């Protein structure tokens, strides 16, 4: 019926009050095609996608010289016409189905809702069609799952159910806004595979993502957005191998992984890290058969490793692997149910309260969410002052010391009187690092320190951590779910799965010659920039029903 582009927009501008979130964006998606928009937070990529289905929100002003959806002039659409397009012509999938599906309703009802709204299926057959849809998106035992609530399903199954609700009325175009962002890497690979299957069945895709590597798997064409403007556009292969715009080049250089090992991430020309290769020192932290139970469930099971002075030990695992619990056990914030964590040869248990405080000085921590780790009433000066007090710096010298610390983490003295809430995510994490360095620790436990940051900010923070290690000789226990980050920063790696150590070894050995099946499975699931196209996706790994029900 319609052979032109499914959606087509020219010179799109979206503003919220005086703020222009999107400026002069043009874009078209043809039948059967997969187009991707890539950008960091605030780039306007989601707003662009939402304006294609008229859902930019109450206080947005949308202007365009041309906006056509399904061959009709959408600039003249009223709410009623938009509603007829949504769900039937264009399906829409958001990230994290735990909050993108109504948590108070069974997933089957949510899928049925799309069918009921558009009356494409007779009422009597709706139930049957819901089960069929769930089966289509690879949900095992669909009859059972239809009656379950989002929180009763695993992340992967939830996301599949969300996709089922979006494709219920067979739209020609599916817009997926960060469809894999909250997911583990193996599950991410499965969802990408599912989206690829949809495309194979003739549905066009508009993929929105912050992750170039994810996009590389599926997209035919890529648009790179920055600050509301498209800075580069072209076929995926060309953009990835021969980027024209400096921002695209910076984005590509910022991605940590095998190729970035030993080089700086925040500059494009592949500068080597300053890190002088020191021989690993004496053991500073040793975990011996650590065990921790939560409500009868074993969260950490016989975990052992050692961290030597001046080195970086990467602790990697998917959600539920117990990696954060291990970090908390090492920090003495949790008491182990078995085994022990030795800090310079002594266990937390055998220390007196005073000795424990002394030991804590030497082993500091940087969290994923720095904001919640700061007292909301404190300014940056107060935060650093307290940490310097712990380090035994006399009151009179603390101000100068605080300025020195800020300088060390690349911040100027202007932030001293500000509260963390007024700083950007990257600045906050720098303050958190400065605070951790104040008592002159020998070990820094980094618990997902860059997971909440944009790629380019992540690159800066990782470079900063590398510089600090070179200058101060601090050892890092680096906890992350992100294999690329772990590959980039670690000297040695511990792979965790469901609380157990699957494999330990030198970073090179783990990533090039893994011994455990699980490690191989993880590595195979990493979306790779150098092998674009769906061919590199892992073979259809159907989810295993036994592990899918989560408490």
């Amino acid at each position, binding site marked *: 019926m319609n052979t032109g582009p499914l959606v087509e927009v020219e010179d799109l501008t979206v503003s919220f009050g005086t703020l222009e979130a999107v400026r002069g964006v043009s874009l078209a998606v043809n039948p059967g095609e997969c187009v991707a928009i890539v950008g960091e937070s605030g780039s306007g990529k989601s707003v662009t996608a939402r304006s294609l289905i008229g859902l930019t929100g109450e206080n947005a002003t949308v202007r365009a010289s041309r906006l056509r959806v399904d061959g009709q002039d959408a600039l003249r659409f009223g709410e009623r016409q938009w509603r007829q397009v*949504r769900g039937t012509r264009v*399906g829409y999938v*958001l990230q994290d189905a735990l909050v*993108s*599906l*109504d948590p*108070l309703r069974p997933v089957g009802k949510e899928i049925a809702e*799309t069918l009921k709204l558009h009356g494409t299926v007779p009422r009597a057959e709706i139930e049957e069609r819901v089960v069929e849809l769930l089966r289509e998106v690879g949900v095992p035992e669909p009859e059972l799952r239809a009656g379950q609530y989002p929180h009763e399903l695993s992340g992967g199954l939830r996301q599949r159910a969300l996709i089922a*609700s979006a494709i219920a009325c067979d739209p020609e175009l599916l817009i997926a806004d960060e469809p894999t962002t909250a997911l583990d890497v193996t599950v991410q690979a499965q969802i990408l595979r599912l989206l690829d299957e949809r495309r194979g069945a003739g549905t066009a895709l508009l993929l929105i993502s912050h992750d170039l590597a994810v996009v590389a798997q599926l997209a035919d064409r890529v648009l790179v957005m920055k600050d509301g403007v498209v800075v580069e556009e072209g076929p995926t292969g060309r953009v990835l191998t021969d980027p024209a715009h400096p921002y695209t080049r910076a984005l590509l250089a910022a991605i940590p992984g095998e190729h970035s090992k030993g080089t700086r991430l925040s500059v494009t020309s592949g500068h080597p890290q300053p890190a002088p290769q020191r021989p690993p020192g004496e053991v500073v932290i040793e975990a011996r058969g650590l065990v921790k139970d939560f409500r009868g469930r074993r969260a950490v099971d016989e975990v052992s490793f050692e961290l030597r002075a001046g080195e970086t030990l990467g602790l990697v695992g998917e959600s539920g692997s117990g990696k954060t619990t291990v970090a908390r056990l090492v920090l003495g914030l949790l008491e182990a149910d078995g085994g022990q964590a030795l800090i310079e040869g002594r266990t937390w248990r055998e220390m007196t309260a005073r000795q424990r405080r002394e030991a804590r000085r030497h082993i500091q921590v940087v969290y994923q969410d720095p904001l919640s780790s700061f007292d909301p009433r404190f300014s940056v000066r107060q935060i650093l002052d307290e940490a310097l007090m712990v380090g035994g710096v006399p009151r009179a010298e603390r101000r100068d010391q605080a300025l020195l610390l800020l300088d060390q983490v690349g911040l100027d003295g202007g932030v001293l009187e500000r509260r963390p809430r007024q700083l950007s995510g990257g600045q906050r994490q720098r303050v958190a690092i400065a605070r951790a360095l104040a008592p002159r620790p020998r070990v820094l436990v980094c618990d997902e320190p860059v997971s909440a940051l944009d790629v380019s900010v992540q690159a800066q923070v990782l470079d900063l951590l590398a510089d600090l290690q070179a200058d101060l000789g601090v050892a890092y226990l680096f906890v992350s779910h992100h294999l690329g980050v772990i590959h980039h920063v670690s000297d040695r790696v511990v792979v965790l799965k469901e609380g157990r150590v699957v494999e330990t070894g030198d970073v090179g050995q783990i990533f090039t010659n893994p011994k455990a099946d699980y490690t191989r499975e993880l590595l195979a699931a990493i979306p790779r920039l150098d092998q674009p196209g769906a061919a590199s996706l892992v073979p259809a790994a159907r989810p295993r029903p036994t592990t899918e029900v989560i408490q």
Partner: protein
Amino acid sequence: MTKAAPRARRTRRRLRAVLVRLATSLLVIWGAATVSFAALQLTPGSVADALVGTSIVSPQVKAQIIADYGLDRPVLTQYLSYLGMVVRGDLGHSYQLNESVGTAIWAQLGASLQLTAAGMGLALVLATVLALLTAKRSRWIRGVSSGAELVGTSVPIFWVGILLLTVFSFQLGWFPAAGGDGLGGLILPAISMALPVTALLAQVMREGLERALDEPFVLTARARGMSDAAVRLRHALRHALLPVITLAGWLFGLLLGAMVVIEQVFSRQGLGTLMLGAVTGKDLPVVMGVVLLTASVYVVINTLLDLLYLVIDPRLREAT
């Protein structure tokens, strides 16, 4: 096989939660009875005098009271026999009214139930409509309604009652000025009672609605082609009800307080009038009886609401 184990564990956990809940309820009622008993003991003067209150009785009657309540026995024995009475549902005797407290309360219960039910029902309906219509609307609409709600929560209800009474009963003569058994007599009191509750509920519900409407699942629903009204009714409203349920126990207390005042303003029969008369007449058995009764009702209501919570929010079924 793998599924049976967690299900059995869940059932056991749920059963334990219900038992804990029941035990807490009994504890609360026992506590209320103890407070009442302590109140009796704390009253200055002899307990027999306190029971009699301000009514004048003959020495024979007084002797009878002492025998009835076992006032010549040790305090602990008195306490136990008082608990025994409460368990049997015997709330004692009012010498001012010269009838059993149970009978006196029973006679007034209907009128009060009518009033509170009408007030609460009206408030719930008005607040829901108001919240649905004003949540996430233009600044102007929200400003006006939140201003009105602010005034609604600040106005003392006895004053509202007097104003309504004067305008609609005395000046316009639309409604009976005092008492009034039928529906006509119920309208003004119910409106006065509903006013502060409506204002409060509307605030809470609008806030809940607005929070729900900002959630990603609302965007998903709209992206399916759902209309704004349907999104509000079918998705957001349920979420907005959760904080209301949390508030309900507190609301019950508010309603009972309002009941006492409203019954005074409109010269109505009811528990409030009964209680107020008892307070001024120092008729402690009646005061204690009403307090105990309302505490028990509160416990029942709270238990029901906890169950309702589980019905509305499936996420809690796992946790309990």
